[in-house]
Each structure stands twice: as structure tokens, then as C-alpha cells.
């Protein structure tokens, strides 16, 4: 499973640029990834739609009524408008964090699924280091792409990566209309790899992939380490979560804040 493995493990390209370079080619599909932030739902949807695997996407929420609570419910027409097939999305309302995790362990053992998305509302203290390690091991063992949507402040976890997703102002179309969805994505943490880098991504629904914002589709994106903060100024450094274990990045981060 390590970088020395002969056969390259399937990976999902995120921005086709420096994020992918940092991720060693893209998001490892046989792994568990954590998503935080107000646009985590959108980011998760786009990632699973970009994932080339066939099969249903199991969306397990810890809510009681299929996410009909505070954040509204998933809207089929809106998912179709993102370029996805809403019929592929299977919703499970587990009704609690523990049932959600039990359902996840069932789902992760099913290789016929394209992806498993776990959506927890609030802080969900039950999802601790042990639980995330179990999720990660199951994802790696069965090769099931697992996304964990979390609320609250980032907590210790054994997931491969941690992402922070917020909405970003979209490109303006004619008559000042907002253009395709844009997200400000921060790779906050990566196990055994560089982290703490941000990117503005625009979702191209016709090709079902991200395009780094500011670039027209298909244009190459310069690859190279860019310290956090340069792309978005102060506002995003605010959102950047603390990242234990990434010492070098912390120093860069501190400098950026102090500057």
C-alpha cells in the first residue's frame, strides 16, 4: 500500500496541478478522506461524481430523516445539474453516529459501491482516532473510496487527508450572473505527505472534473509549492485548521499570519 508498491493504486485527480502533485498523483481512492467546512457537501458530491468507478454512491447520514434537518435535503435536480445521475445516490438515514458507523462498516465491505460518504452533523465526538483508523483500514483493505463529512473543529484522526472546503465567488457570466460553482479548497493535512496548501477550484459539470480557477479548462497549471495565504489573503488562513504533526507547514503558516 505504500509508495513503493509496484502497481500504482487508482487515484482521483483533484486539480490536475499542485494539489495532485502534493497528493502523489491524486486522491487515493482506496482510502478515507475527511472533509470539513461549509461547502463540504458540495465538495464531496463533486469528488464522488468525478470518481470514475461505476456503481451506486452510498450516502450515510447520522440524521433521522435523510438530512431533512437544518441543512435541507439533498436535491436530485441539483445533483443532475452538477452533471451527476441522482439515481446513483442511495441515501441512508442512520439516525445517530453509532448506527452510521455500523452501516459504514457494512458498506465498506461491499466493493460494488462507487463510494461511501458519511455525513455527520455537529462535532460527533464518537468519531475518534480509533474509529477513523478503522474506517481508513476498511477503505484501504476493500478499496472503497470513503469520504467523511464532519462538522465542528477538526479532531485527531487517522484519515489519509483532511480538507477544508468553503464557497468562493464564482466567475461572472453575462449580465453579472454567478457562473459555475467555485470552491476554495485547503488540503489541511495529509498523512505522510505535504499539506497546508489551498486552491480555488471550479467545477466543470460537462467534463465532471475540477478545473483550477483562473485557468481556462485544459490549460496546464504550474506545479510548485505555494505557501498558504498567497492565493486568498488573510481570510482563508483564518479557516486553516491546526495541523498537529505537520511541523514545517506550521512554521510557514505562522509566518504568513505574522506577516
Amino acid at each position, binding site marked *: 500500500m505504500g509508495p513503493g508498491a509496484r502497481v500504482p493504486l487508482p487515484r482521483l485527480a483533484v486539480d490536475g496541478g499542485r494539489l495532485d502533485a502534493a497528493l502523489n498523483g491524486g486522491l487515493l481512492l482506496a482510502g478515507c478522506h475527511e472533509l470539513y467546512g461549509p461547502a463540504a457537501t458540495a465538495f464531496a458530491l463533486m469528488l464522488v461524481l468525478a470518481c470514475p468507478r461505476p456503481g451506486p454512491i452510498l450516502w450515510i447520514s447520522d440524521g433521522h430523516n435523510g438530512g431533512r434537518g437544518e441543512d435541507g435535503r439533498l436535491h*436530485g435536480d441539483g445533483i443532475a445539474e452538477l452533471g451527476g445521475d441522482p439515481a446513483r445516490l442511495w441515501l441512508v438515514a442512520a439516525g445517530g453516529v453509532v448506527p452510521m458507523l455500523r452501516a459504514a462498516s457494512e458498506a465498506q465491505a461491499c466493493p460494488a459501491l462507487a463510494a461511501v460518504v458519511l455525513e455527520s452533523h455537529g462535532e460527533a465526538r464518537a468519531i475518534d482516532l480509533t474509529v477513523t483508523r478503522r474506517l481508513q483500514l476498511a477503505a484501504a483493505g476493500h478499496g472503497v473510496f470513503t469520504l467523511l463529512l464532519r462538522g465542528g473543529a477538526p479532531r485527531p484522526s487517522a484519515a489519509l487527508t483532511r480538507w477544508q472546503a468553503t*464557497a468562493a*465567488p464564482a466567475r461572472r457570466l453575462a449580465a453579472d450572473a454567478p457562473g459555475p460553482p467555485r470552491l476554495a479548497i485547503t488540503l489541511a493535512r495529509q498523512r505522510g505527505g505535504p499539506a497546508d496548501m489551498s486552491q480555488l477550484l471550479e467545477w466543470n459539470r460537462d467534463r465532471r472534473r475540477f478545473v483550477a480557477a483562473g485557468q481556462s479548462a485544459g490549460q496546464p497549471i504550474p506545479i510548485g509549492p505555494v505557501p498558504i495565504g498567497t492565493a486568498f489573503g488573510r481570510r482563508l488562513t483564518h479557516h486553516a485548521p491546526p495541523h498537529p504533526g505537520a511541523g514545517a507547514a506550521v512554521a510557514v503558516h505562522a509566518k504568513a499570519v505574522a506577516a
Partner: protein
Amino acid sequence: MLSTQRLSRPDPEAPLLLVASDRGRQIVRAANAAALAQGLAPGLALADARAAVPDVAVAPFDPDGDAACLDWLARGATRWSPLVRAGHPHGLLIDITGCAHLFGGEASLVADAVTRLVRLGFTAQPALAATPAAAMAFARFGGERVADLSLAALSELESVQIALRRAGLRRVGDVARLPRAALASRFGTALVAALDQLLEAAPEPLDPLLPAAPVAAQRRFAQPVGNHDAVRAALHKLLLAVQVKLAARGQGGRRFALALYRSDGHVAEVAVETAAPQRDVPILLRLFDERIAALNDPLDPGFGYDLLRLAVPVTAPLAEAQLGLDGGALAETQLTALVDRLAARLGRGRLRRLARADSHIPEQASFDLPLGGGADAWPAPEPGEPPARPIRLFDPPQPIEVLAEVPDGPPRRFRWRARVHDVTAHEGPERIAAAWWRRKDGAGLTRDYWRVEDSQGRRYWLFRHGLYERETAAPRWYLHGLFA
């Protein structure tokens, strides 16, 4: 007697009356044996009864409770035969055709039934007959032969009984000798129907409490078992037995219902459903494990179960399985198994899929349905356009306060959840009319939808409810969804 016996179990010797109010008076509707012995009969006013026996206990007459109790007893009676019906108000009808040999003959089956009912505090009057109506009549009126039954077995109506008696008829046998056509013209067809049911001339469907399952297996224990492992081992054997029967029929089960009969008369039921016909024992055992682990009130074995029955009420053809090299079939099998396990644990209603309907009202056009069934075709979006529909929808829409430059213009600023959002870009309006053809008056407010982005870059779907001046003077605004 059921009404009083289900209440007076602690002390059946004390007189007890059940009363209901009738036009402002408290009337005795039922009395226990002790009360009857003291001359307190149903129909008496409570005041009179109290005058006769001052210390009589009184409780409200509760026919619904009686019916529930009788249904509970009927459920327990399925231990003797799957075909059981509660004969309201006080009877239980059990079709023991082909069942008696399991209990060592009819006599010992009846003895077992009476013993169990007595243990629960009920008196039982058993009767065996060739038809349900005759069995019920023997239980109520006693006797050995249908011909000797009293006229009350033919009709509940006093007037009909009197008319029959005036015609010189004393027993059912006297009536049965007369030509049916004459009886029908004089006393009504209901009487003839009742007579035919007593005499086996007309079949009377039993309409059982539980539909008879095409495949079932049961295990009886000489000693009640309460141990979870023992119950699970018995379930395993039942599943094996059912598997053999299903395989012989070339079928699989869609629903498996396990009934656990407690020795004190209670019946617990656990059922699992499968998305596709199934007869694989390890899979089914695992589904039962999931279901039992997820039960809200865990199985309470009490003094133990003395009978387990596994019924397969819903079956469907299932060909002999062969593991295919075809990946598609394998994936299908894996997904079905996953859905079954999740459904057993969480309940089938918790598994949903997104569905769409032919409506232009957004919250009606897209909704979720239980998983399963055909998938809908979704319209492909226009290439190159930004998404016109949000990924999350609020149902109902959330009211917001909006500041617009002109009442029918685009929103400039809005307040949602105590936070002010400045609109930096907008697109709209997309006008969606109410379903005016559904309403008689043709009314209903038009919605003007706006896709807006705030200064933070978040995108919202807002609508103004009602056209300014044409439909309403002060249109209200709502937030209906969140875009990516």
C-alpha cells in the same frame, strides 16, 4: 367473561362489575362469576347493584381493550395451528385440520389449550366441530349434535327466535328439515346462511389472523429455552429446514417471520425482508442477528420459549444459484446483500433513493422514495451553463427578510438565520407559477426565483412569493436552497 377475567386476575373471588355510561346512567355491562352469583347481572343500573352489594368493585367497560386482549390470545393460539381467528367478542377459532397429530391427537390438543388459558386466568369452554360456526355454537350453547342446538345458534335477534318458536320450531334440527326457499322467504336469507354454515352446507372462510405461509417450519421444546445461543441454534435449524423446502419448490423467500412463543402465552415476532428472493442460510442468519441486535425493545425470553416457528409468507421463484464469472451479476448480488443488511439493521424506510416527478414546483419535482424500484431518468443539463438548481433544498422554504431596490426587482441584501448577506451577483427571475389548475379559484402565488451569490461567495436560491401589485401588495421572500 373475558372482559372481567382479564381484569380480575389478582382476586377472581371478589365481585367485579364493568360499567359504561348510557344516557347519563351507569349501566353494568359485564360481571364476573362472583358478581353473577350474587345476582348482579349485565343490564342492571350501577346504583341498584351498589344497593344490593355495597362493596362491589367497579371498573370501566372497555370493549377495545377486550378486543386487543382477544387478539393477543389469538396470536398465542397460533402455536396450535397457523389458521386462527379471533371470534369477537369472546371466542377463538382455531382450524386444527392436520395439526392435531402434532399434539398427540385432538383431545390432548384441546387439553393443552384449556390448560394454558386457565394458567392465564381465563375459563375456557372448548368445542370441536366440523365447521367454524358449529364449533362456536357448541362452545357457547353446549351440546353434541348440531340438530340439538338451541335456536339462539341460528340468530342473535330475539324477534327471529320468537318467530321460529311460534312456528313450532324448538331446535336447529327442526329448522333444518324445512325447505330452504320457504325459510328464506319467511325469516330472511341470513337465517338460511347461518343454518348452512352450521350444517357444513356452505363453506365459511376462516379469514385467519395471520395469512397462512406457503413455507414454514417449527421447533418445539420440551423444556422452555431462554438462552440466546440455544434460540439462535434453533433458528439455524429452522432456516435449514426452510431452505430445503424452498429449494424443492425452486423458490426463495422475500420475507422471513420468526415467531417465538413464550410459555406464558406471549408471542414475540421478528421478521426480516430481503430485496431479492433468498434462501441462503448464513445470509439469513446474519440478517436475523442484525434485526435482533437492532430491536428497540430487546427480546425478553421471560421463563423461556417453548415453540419457535419460522414462516416464509412471501416467496418468489429463485433459480439454482451459480457463481457467474460475469462481474455485473456479482456486483448486483453484493449490492442486494448490502441493502438487506442495512434494511435489517435500520429498517427499510431509512434507505432512500432520489426520485423525480413531473412537476415544476421544485419541492414536488424532486423527492426521495424507499430504495428499490426503477430509477428515474433525469434531464441532462444544458452544456456550458451554470447549475440552475441547488444541491440542498429546504422543505418547507425558510422565510427571510430581503432588501430590494424596487419591490419587483432583484434582492440586494437579505437576512437569514440572524445573519445579513450582501448580494454581489444575481440571475433571474425564473418565474414558476403555482399549480392554478389544481385549485377551483385558480389562485396561488407565483414564485420568482433568483440565483444569488453573497459577498462570501456562497450561492443561494431565493424566491419572492407573489407578483408585486398583481398578486400581493407585500410579497414575502423565502430561501429555498443552497448551491454548491
